[in-house]
C-alpha cells in the first residue's frame, strides 16, 4: 500500500468524524498558538526596552552615586574637570536630576518632569532645540533661571502662543523660556516630550536636592568606553574609598542584564505554553485510543482481507500526524493573529514574529502527534483479526 493511499485513508477517516477531529485538534491549536503568542509578547517587550536603551547610543556611560556620605561628595564641576583632563576618552558629561514639579503659565498649570542638566545633555541624548536655544555653560555658572520646554508642555500650557521669552513658574519661582525642544515622541503625555529642562545648579537649589546623583557621560567612541569606565571608577574610588558607594555601567552591560532577564521571562512563558501543548498531545492519545476501541471491527475487517500490521500502524499514525500537523498549522495562524491583532493591534508592545519559535512549536506539535499516536496505533495494529471481527 502506497504512502499516498495511506494518507487518503487517514483523511477520509478524519473527515468522517469532523467534530471529534476538531476537538482533538483544539488542544494542539491552543498549545501552539499560546507558545507563539507568549514568546511574541515576551520578545516584543524585550525589543521595546532594548530599542529604547540602544537609541541612547553605545558610547554612553552612566554613573550613579549611592553613598550618603555628605563630607566626601563628587560634584558636577569635579567630574567636569575630570572629563576635561581625560578628553581622549570622554567627550561630554551631563548631570541628571529628575524631579516631578508643577509648571505654570498664567492660569494654566501642568505637572511634568523637570530635568536639571548641562549643555552636554544635547550631545549625549541628541536632544536639540528647534526654536530658541538649549542651555549654555553660562546658565549653570551664573544660576540663570532659564527653561527649555518639551512640546507636550508647550502644547498644553501655551495654547498656541509662542512661549519664547515668556515667564513660567516652576514650584513658584519664575523662569524665562529660552527654547523649545525637537519633538521626539509625538508629543505624548508622560513621554520624552513631557519635560522641562533647567540648569543643574538651579535645579539643585530649587528642589533642595543637595548632591547630584546621576551623570550621563559620553565616551569618545565605543572603543574607549572600557578605558573611560576604568578611569572613572578609579577616580570615584579615590573620593569615596568605598566601591559600593557608586556604580559605573554602560549600555552594553544594561543590555546584557536585560537579555538574561527577558530570556528567563521568554523561557518561563514558553514553558507554561509548552505544557498546554503536551496536554493537547495527551488529548490526542486519548481520542486515538477511543478510536481504536471504536474501530476494532474495522481493523478486524481490514486485517482479514489482507492488511498487514504495518498498514494499520501507518494508517493510525498518519491520522494522528495529520490531526496534530493540521492543528499545528491552525495554531500558528491563531498565534500570529493574536500577536498581530491583539498584542500589536492594541500597541502593547511591538510586533515580533520569532521564526525559530514558530518552527519549534510546530515541530513539538508534530512530535507530540507521533509520540502520542504511536501507542494507540501499535495497539490497533496488534489486534488479533478473529477477535477484532467478533467485536461490535
Amino acid at each position: 500500500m502506497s504512502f499516498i493511499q495511506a494518507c487518503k485513508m487517514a483523511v477520509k477517516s478524519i473527515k468522517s468524524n469532523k467534530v471529534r477531529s476538531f476537538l482533538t485538534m483544539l488542544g494542539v491549536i491552543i498549545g501552539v498558538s499560546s507558545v507563539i503568542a507568549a514568546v511574541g509578547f515576551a520578545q516584543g517587550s524585550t525589543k521595546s526596552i532594548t530599542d529604547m536603551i540602544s537609541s541612547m547610543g553605545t558610547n554612553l556611560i552612566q554613573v550613579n552615586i549611592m553613598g550618603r556620605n555628605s563630607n566626601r561628595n563628587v560634584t558636577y564641576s569635579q567630574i567636569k574637570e575630570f572629563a576635561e583632563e581625560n578628553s581622549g576618552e570622554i567627550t561630554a558629561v551631563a548631570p541628571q536630576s529628575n524631579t516631578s514639579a508643577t509648571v505654570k503659565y498664567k492660569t494654566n498649570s501642568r505637572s511634568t518632569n523637570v530635568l536639571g542638566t548641562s549643555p552636554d545633555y544635547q550631545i549625549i541624548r541628541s536632544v536639540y532645540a528647534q526654536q530658541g536655544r538649549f542651555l549654555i555653560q553660562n546658565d549653570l555658572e551664573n544660576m540663570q533661571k532659564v527653561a527649555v520646554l518639551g512640546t507636550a508642555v508647550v502644547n498644553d500650557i501655551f495654547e498656541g502662543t509662542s512661549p519664547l521669552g515668556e515667564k513660567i513658574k516652576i514650584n513658584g519661582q519664575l523662569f524665562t523660556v529660552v527654547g523649545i525642544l525637537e519633538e521626539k515622541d509625538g508629543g505624548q503625555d508622560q513621554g520624552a516630550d513631557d519635560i522641562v529642562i533647567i540648569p543643574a545648579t538651579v535645579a539643585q537649589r530649587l528642589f533642595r536636592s543637595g548632591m547630584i546623583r546621576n551623570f550621563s557621560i559620553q565616551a569618545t567612541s565605543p572603543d574607549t568606553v572600557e578605558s573611560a569606565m576604568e578611569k572613572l571608577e578609579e577616580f570615584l574610588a579615590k573620593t569615596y574609598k568605598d566601591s559600593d558607594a557608586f556604580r559605573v555601567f554602560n549600555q552594553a552591560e544594561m543590555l546584557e542584564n536585560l537579555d538574561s532577564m527577558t530570556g528567563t521571562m521568554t523561557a518561563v512563558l514558553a514553558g507554561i505554553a509548552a505544557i498546554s501543548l503536551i496536554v493537547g498531545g495527551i488529548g490526542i492519545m486519548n481520542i486515538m485510543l477511543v478510536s481504536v476501541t471504536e474501530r476494532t471491527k474495522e481493523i478486524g475487517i481490514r486485517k482479514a482481507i489482507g492488511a498487514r500490521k504495518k498498514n494499520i500502524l501507518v494508517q493510525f499514525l498518519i491520522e494522528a500526524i495529520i490531526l496534530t500537523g493540521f492543528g499545528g498549522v491552525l495554531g500558528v495562524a491563531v498565534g500570529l493573529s493574536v500577536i498581530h491583532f491583539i498584542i500589536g493591534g492594541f500597541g502593547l508592545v511591538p510586533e515580533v514574529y520569532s521564526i525559530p519559535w514558530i518552527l519549534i512549536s510546530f515541530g513539538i506539535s508534530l512530535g507530540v502527534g507521533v509520540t502520542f499516536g504511536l501507542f494507540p496505533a501499535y495497539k490497533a495494529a496488534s489486534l488479533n483479526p478473529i477477535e477484532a471481527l467478533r467485536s461490535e
Partner: protein
Amino acid sequence: MIEICNMSKIYRIGNVAVKALDNISLSIKQHEFVSIVGPSGSGKSTLMNMIGCLDVPTSGEYRLDGMEVSGLTDDQLAYIRNHKIGFVFQGFNLIQKLNALENVELPLIYQGIPTSERYERSVEALKLVGLEDRIHHRPAELSGGQQQRVAIARALVGNPQIILADEPTGNLDSKSGKDIINLLKELHLKGSTIVLITHDNDIAMMAERIVRIQDGQINDDRVVS
C-alpha cells in the same frame, strides 16, 4: 489446492484445554464447491479460520496451493489472505463509513494496485454481483442481500484461489439467501473454488460435496451431485 493433514487446534481457557479441531485431514481440489456442515460448537468456524489463514493450528500441516502455511508470520498470513482468499462473512463485515465501491477496493489497496486499475476491477466485480447501479451507496443504504453481494464482490475482486463463505445466508431472509447461494453457484460455474460453511442442511445440499463435522472431527465426506 487445500491439503490439511492431521490438523489439531487446542484452545486454553484457564486451565481447561478445549480441542476445537481433533486430528482433521481434508483435501479440497481446485474448482470444487464444498460445504462444511456442522452444529454450532462443532469446530467448523475454527476450521474456517484455519483454512482462511486467520489463525494457525496447534499441530498438523496445512498446505495451501502447495505452500506450507503453519509456520508463517502474521504478515505472511496477511499476504496470503490478501492474494489467495476471499472472505464472505455472516455479518457482511463491510466498513460502514465507506461506500460499496470503496469497500470492494480494499483488498486491491492492500495489494498495491494503482487507482485506475483498482476502480475498473471494483466496478467489474460489482457488475458481476448485479450492483453496478449502487456503487456509491453506503452499506446502511443497502438491503442485507445487497450488502452481502458487496461483500462477495469484495471477496472476488482480488482474483483469489478460494472463496470462503462463512454462513453467508445466516443474516438474510430466505429469498435473499437463495439469491446469494445462486450467485455463489454461478461463480463456481465460472471457475471459482468455493468453500461454504453452514449449519443449514438445505443450503449445504447446494454444493457438490458435503463435509460433515462434529466435535472437531470429520464424520462424513461425500459427493452429492
